[in-house]
């Protein structure tokens, strides 16, 4: 019998490293011996738009796209982006949010408002919400780009995959100069 397929949705804004994070996550899943499919959209999205990636895994996966109401976990690199995809979350699903606001153009221009209470809105809607100050932590580690490794560390707590597997993939992913820092960032996220 084929085991149940699990789905993770990673959301963020262009340039935040969402696709890199989902690549690493998928490599970890393969390394752990499972089947994986992941989806993302390039093209127009590259010009400052939203970026999302669906990662789906199990013993055999057919669709690279998750359906609405069926995602186990949303990992959001930016607060507002969580709201945009919340209808993908399943009953009882979990949300991990990086505590960061990136203003869309209409907000920048003073024509629209950035919803002031995003975390509350999300918390009203789902049972388990974790808010992580990953951007701040990454800045403290000396490289804002490490947000994604920190968030992967947080995510790893909710996946049944050995730390050794994660480390092995991180070692393969990053150039020697920054591997150490990234493994440190991963554990910073994982331990919290």
């Amino acid at each position: 019998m084929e085991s149940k397929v699990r789905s993770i949705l990673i959301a963020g804004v262009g340039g935040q490293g969402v696709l890199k994070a989902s690549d690493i996550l998928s490599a970890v899943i393969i390394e752990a011996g499972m089947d994986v499919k992941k989806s993302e959209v390039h093209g127009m999205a590259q010009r400052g738009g939203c970026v999302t990636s669906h990662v789906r895994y199990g013993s055999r996966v057919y669709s690279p796209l998750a359906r609405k109401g069926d995602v186990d976990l949303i990992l959001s690199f930016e607060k507002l982006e969580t709201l945009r995809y919340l209808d993908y979350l399943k009953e009882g699903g979990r949300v991990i949010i990086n505590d960061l606001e990136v203003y869309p153009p209409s907000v920048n221009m003073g024509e629209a408002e950035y919803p002031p209470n995003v975390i509350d809105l999300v918390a009203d809607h789902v049972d388990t919400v974790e808010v992580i100050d990953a951007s701040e932590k990454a800045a403290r580690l000396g490289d804002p780009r490490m947000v994604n490794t920190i968030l992967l560390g947080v995510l790893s707590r909710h996946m049944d995959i050995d730390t050794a597997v994660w480390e092995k993939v991180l070692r393969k992913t990053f150039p020697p100069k920054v591997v150490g820092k990234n493994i440190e960032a991963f554990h910073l996220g994982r331990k919290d």
Partner: protein
Amino acid sequence: MKVLMSGNEAIARGAYECGVTFAAAYPGTPSTEITEEFSKYEGVYAEWSPNEKVALEVAIGASLAGANAMAVMKHVGVNVAADPLFTVSYTGTNGGLVIVTADDPSLHSSQNEQDNRNYAKFAKIPMIEPSDSAEAKDFIRIAFEIARKFDTPVFLRTTTRLSHSKSVVETGEPKPSGAVLEIRHDPRKYVMVPANARLRRLAVEERMKKLAEFAETFPENRIEMNDPSMGIVAAGMAYSYAREAFPEASFLKLGMVHPIPAGMIRAFAARVDRLYVVEELDPFLEEQIRALGLPVAGKEHLPFTNEFDPGIVETALSGKAANVKALPQVTIPPRPPNLCPGCPHRGLFYVLGKTKTFVAGDIGCYTLSFMKPLAGLHSCICMGASVGMAHGMSKALGEGGHGKVVGVIGDSTFIHSGITSLLNTVYNQSDVVIVICDNRTTAMTGMQQHPATGYTLQGARTRQLDIPSLGTVLGIENVRVINPLDLKETREVIKEELERKGPSLVVAQSPCALLLKKKGGEEKPLRIDPDVCTGCKVCLGLGCPAISWRKFDAETEKTFKKKTKKQEGIAVIDRDLCNGCTLCSQVCKFKAVEEAK
């Protein structure tokens, strides 16, 4: 080795492994990475051709010489290549010829949502369609096998979801194709004058009959019997969605979508209680199955538009509403794509948006200028349309159109399909101003080389097309070169050329901001001095992502030294985003913009 690959990477890998040595293409999402990835393999030739028609003709030539060659393009690219396509179907080729068409259900990055399976039927060319990366890698090999076996061009169809999703692929070692490269003369087969073409026309029908027989035993068309109460016919990504939505159902999975295996479909229909077709876009399979006299359901339940997912398929066919919670009641501001900070198109369209003209636009990053606040582009139909449309509009308006019609086209797009229509403005003398946005790259699709960049796809230095000289040679008397980041110059030249009679050409030259970034040039970010900014908002009219509006809060409202009574806030520049293009300092009357320290 097991690796995660996108559908596009898998097609490139599969082509390399099965001995394909030749690819010609024009970039276009979602097809671009196929050729880019392929070009990096050892021992292959790959080129960016100026457009898809040329790319296909190049691939035809290579395959007549015996090579296994592919032509790669997005769905609308096949429209451009349609002329050679319909007749190479008659001639066949000596080597293998495969046309990869990448369709875009949901129009993620396209101007239309056409279903290119129709081309297979229309041009009488077999088409195969993989459903994940592993199949993509196998199917490109199979496509060449079919091409050689039946002496026919073959279509490999992919969609955005297949091209850009990643799944597990087992890579292997490359095998030599055994292709023999030589010149072969066979005028009756390759000179398509009516007498020869009439004979080839018969050969095509004969070939399609043989292919229809082949489809019946083609191993990638397979029946997966399960619960017989529901039988689903599907191909490509739609199969993956349906397989997941209805794990208990029986399937006829089609690897080949044209021609269809009629016998196999009849046999499958006889074994199931109810027959369904799950397919995105047109009822391509459904209509053909219905024509076999089989009762079948499909588009009466499933949408004609947009890509599917397992939820859409399940809800449509089961009639049960999905268990989806409503989003919280709050307006979520969108994040539309925008021109980058420092983009040279911004200067040009800031100026054009303030003229009282019709700006016939084209396809590229600059198309985004149609949006507010620039609002400087008023049409976009297909690549190259701007020049012809501007000419037609000017001719139709006659005297009344003088100084009112502009055509704007990117450098890559001009080379793709603007040159002949520019010639037409000279030949038939219209009163237009044509502007070429020469940013030295094909930016929209991710910075590909083209004939005016001086480099080829595989990195060789080459002759660089001189666009202004080309304009002169075509007979344009007034060729002007401007820097679109210089607003004064841009404004003056556009005004002069609008006033002048006859066709003018303005070449707006300034490299793409991303190109500059890639080259690692020095950037000098700017800042706005809050003590000088009057809050007039003129700089916001540039729509630059680096500039934002900061409205005074209650606290600053009291303490801030306002320049006017009505001042409500100030503009600020995000120095991490700013590349120092200076457009904002050029529009600021109060000299509030200065270099950031």
